[in-house]
């Protein structure tokens, strides 16, 4: 039970800082311990640093609202320190990264750690601290945490594989100690898994994970707070080579507090999820068949599942001939498993695709042709909506003399009943690029891109046209170790509806990457200049603006 009175907002602490918890201090201690072997003799240590200084200029009346750049001079520094090696029987690696910037579009904090990770193993015991990613199974755990994990597995004795994990599920490190700008709900994750290989062809795993949110860290009073437990059994069986059965069953018990505004507001749910999959692979065929049922009240806070779904999915990939590949797929799923909704939706998505290689005897020619029918039936008391969409795509890649080409064509029909949507879309694009080497000293790489989309709304009889075209050229001065490229082009949006905005973006970019001799002592030492101009013109002139940006930087890796 949670009430607003029990909560203490971290922002009420002096300076908006959070108290550093004991588990976090233990984590840091463990991390320092893991990095200690870096001082030993048999190791490899690298660092990388990229510093860039950018000047952004935004002009025009619409710039303040629409530009994604920050005006003025801005810096960005990315630092990484990593190492690996062996000390006696222990293998270790570590990785630390920091970011510093005064551009709030890059990061909300001026200085922040991006990654802190250390790992040590003697092939039987493995300890990981810092950024930790243990994936147990789909329903139980597939989320990275900031914490630690321990794994025991003795392959020689075919022991059970035991994994334990603990940590915070937070988007960034400085959420743990940072100020108000990096706040997030404090979610703690605990988990344990035991997996046993019974034979080389059969294994089973049992997992338990708990995700618990600290009520006092709500960002707003209506943020839901979860306390969820998942118990999961998963297994795999390969009766003969090429045939695999996989299955997973999970049950969840979740307590959710939707708001801190009322006292008695907890919702307790209990749900189950199960799936079974068969994959057959042999000769020219690969066939898979999957069934899944996830109950309405199932929650997977640290894994992945879509509640209220029953699904059957099948795929068949078949090499019809040496150069022809067939892909067939069929997906059906539905909701309203508990009958509590006013209507039920059934979704059917059959699809067929062909890949043709060496088309018409052309060695580099590859064509992908695909069609998908996306059908939804909303049934019940008349409030369900049915849709029928047809999606056809063609991709063709080929080489004509020195020119490589990549062409895409797409045609889509959208149809939603009761005249909610009737529309057609045509998309097309063509990219041509080439590479010419001159006297083994210079390389020229021209690039041409043409693309667009026509979208026709048959209900309001309006058409939107999009055109995109650009031309670019890359230069490589091999002896100087200098690369350069430029690109110019336009993106145009033309709308037929009255009172809407047409727009044109004219753009240009110019970049130089140079590895000078005086940076040779570094593995990779590079100076770079990146610049671009985007000029946006709208029919409503008060929205027009221009962005100019130039960045100078240096990248060092040792």
């Amino acid at each position, binding site marked *: 039970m949670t009430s607003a009175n029990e909560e203490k907002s971290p922002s009420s602490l002096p300076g908006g800082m959070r108290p550093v918890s004991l588990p976090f201090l233990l984590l840091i201690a463990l991390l320092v311990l893991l990095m200690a072997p870096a001082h030993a003799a048999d190791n490899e240590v690298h660092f990388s640093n990229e510093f860039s200084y950018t000047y952004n200029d935004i002009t025009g009346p*619409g710039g303040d609202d*629409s*530009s*994604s750049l920050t005006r003025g001079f801005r810096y*960005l520094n990315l630092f990484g320190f990593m190492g690996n090696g062996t000390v006696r029987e222990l293998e270790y690696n570590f990785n630390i*990264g920091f970011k510093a910037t005064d551009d709030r*579009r*890059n990061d909300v904090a001026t200085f922040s750690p991006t*990654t802190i*990770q250390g790992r040590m193993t003697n092939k039987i015991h493995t300890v990981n601290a810092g950024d*930790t*990613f*243990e994936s147990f199974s*789909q329903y139980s755990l*597939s*989320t*990275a945490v900031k914490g630690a994990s321990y794994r025991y597995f003795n392959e020689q004795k075919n022991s059970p594989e035991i994994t334990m994990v603990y940590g915070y599920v937070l*988007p*960034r490190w400085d959420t743990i100690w940072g100020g108000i700008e990096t706040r997030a709900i404090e979610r703690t994750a605990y988990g344990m898994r035991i997996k046993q290989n019974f034979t*080389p062809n059969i294994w089973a795993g049992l997992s338990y994970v708990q995700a618990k949110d600290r009520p006092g860290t709500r960002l707003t009073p209506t943020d839901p707070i979860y306390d969820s437990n998942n118990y999961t059994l998963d297994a795999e069986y390969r009766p*003969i*080579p*090429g*045939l695999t059965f996989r299955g997973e069953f999970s049950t969840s018990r979740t307590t959710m507090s939707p708001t801190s505004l009322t006292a008695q507001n907890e919702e307790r749910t209990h749900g189950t999820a199960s799936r079974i999959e*068969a994959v*057959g*692979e*042999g*000769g020219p*065929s690969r066939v898979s*068949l999957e069934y899944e049922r996830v109950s309405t009240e199932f929650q997977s806070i640290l894994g992945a599942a*879509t509640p209220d779904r029953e*699904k059957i999915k099948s795929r*068949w990939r078949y090499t019809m001939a040496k150069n022809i590949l067939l892909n*067939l797929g*069929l997906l059906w799923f539905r909701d309203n498993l508990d009958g509590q909704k006013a209507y039920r939706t059934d979704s059917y998505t*059959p699809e067929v695709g062909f890949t043709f290689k060496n088309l018409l005897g052309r060695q580099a020619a590859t064509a*992908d042709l*695909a069609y998908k029918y*996306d*059908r939804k*039936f909303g049934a019940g008391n008349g409030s369900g909506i049915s849709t029928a969409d047809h999606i056809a*795509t063609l991709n063709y890649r080929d080489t004509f003399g020195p020119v490589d080409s990549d062409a*895409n064509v*797409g045609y*889509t029909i959208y149809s939603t009943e009761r005249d909610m949507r009737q529309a057609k*879309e045509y998309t097309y*694009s063509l990219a041509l690029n080439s590479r010419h080497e001159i006297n083994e000293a210079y390389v020229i790489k021209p690039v041409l891109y043409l*693309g667009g*989309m026509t*979208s026709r709304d048959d209900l309001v009889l309006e058409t*939107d046209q*999009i055109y995109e075209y650009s031309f670019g050229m890359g230069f490589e001065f091999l002896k100087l170790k200098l690369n350069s490229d430029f690109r110019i082009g336009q*993106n145009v*949006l033309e*709308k037929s509806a009255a009172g*809407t905005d047409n727009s044109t*973006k004219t753009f240009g970019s110019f970049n130089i990457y140079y590895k000078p001799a005086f940076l040779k002592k570094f593995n990779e030492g590079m100076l770079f200049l990146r610049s671009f101009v985007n000029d946006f013109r*709208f029919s409503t002139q008060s*929205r027009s603006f221009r962005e100019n940006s130039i960045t100078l930087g240096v990248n060092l890796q040792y």
Partner: protein
Amino acid sequence: MKGRKVSRKIIAGIFCIASFFLVGLIPGPVVLWAASAERPEDIRLEYLYINKKMIPETEKKVTFFSELLPGGRVSVAGKVAGSAEVRSVEVNIDGRRTWQKVRLAQDNTFSFRFRAQKGETYGLLIRITDAKGNTNNVEGTLRLVAILDRSLYGAVQDVLNRMIEVYQRRASGSFMAYVDDSFAGEKEEYDRSVRKDMSAIHDVDIRYTLNSVTPDYKDKVSASLNFNRSYTLIRTGRRLNDQGSTAMIFRIGNGKLSLYAVNGPPLFGFIR
């Protein structure tokens, strides 16, 4: 209403028939292998694992990131098919120059490891000799084991850059080629979301900073990133921008990354 019911029944019928047909295909490979097993003169592998991944007969090349190799080594495990007596199993990774005899267990299983260098490709061959001195089809066991020269961090950057490029070009088919078949949350639903973006927005510009790249040392890697996104909404013609941070899980398969899950605000498929 009646037409809708009829078409629904037709689709359901096609679905059932196709599913039955597909299930019926599974015994194809079963029959193939069973038939092989009935010929005792065949000396062959029952299975082969490289770094704990089962390698089917059809997969001739496997690729790994060097930083994910335990101790910088590739481990190979296999079993000779049948119950006939096997005199020896030898392996070669240097173009048939040196054959290394490996220890064979009573159940005809064997395993060995070798140190692998970044950027190298090894041709793995396995020679099985039975009690009569007959050997297997050695060439048939050839597997190329490639160790990538690039880092996992670089690979994540590459796949993100390519996804952004095809997303900007509205090449939905090419985009979905970077999404894993077992995408958590359903690949077809994700495809629908991405196509919705492609219909609704234009001239998308995405800049991102990769914060951490954390592998699970099995078959997945988690990448957290900050992004800054601007785009033109086609319906109104207005230019909008937003920013955020998210985490994306990629599955590592044969040196290639494919998107497996998104834990956080979606970078693609975000238009509601």
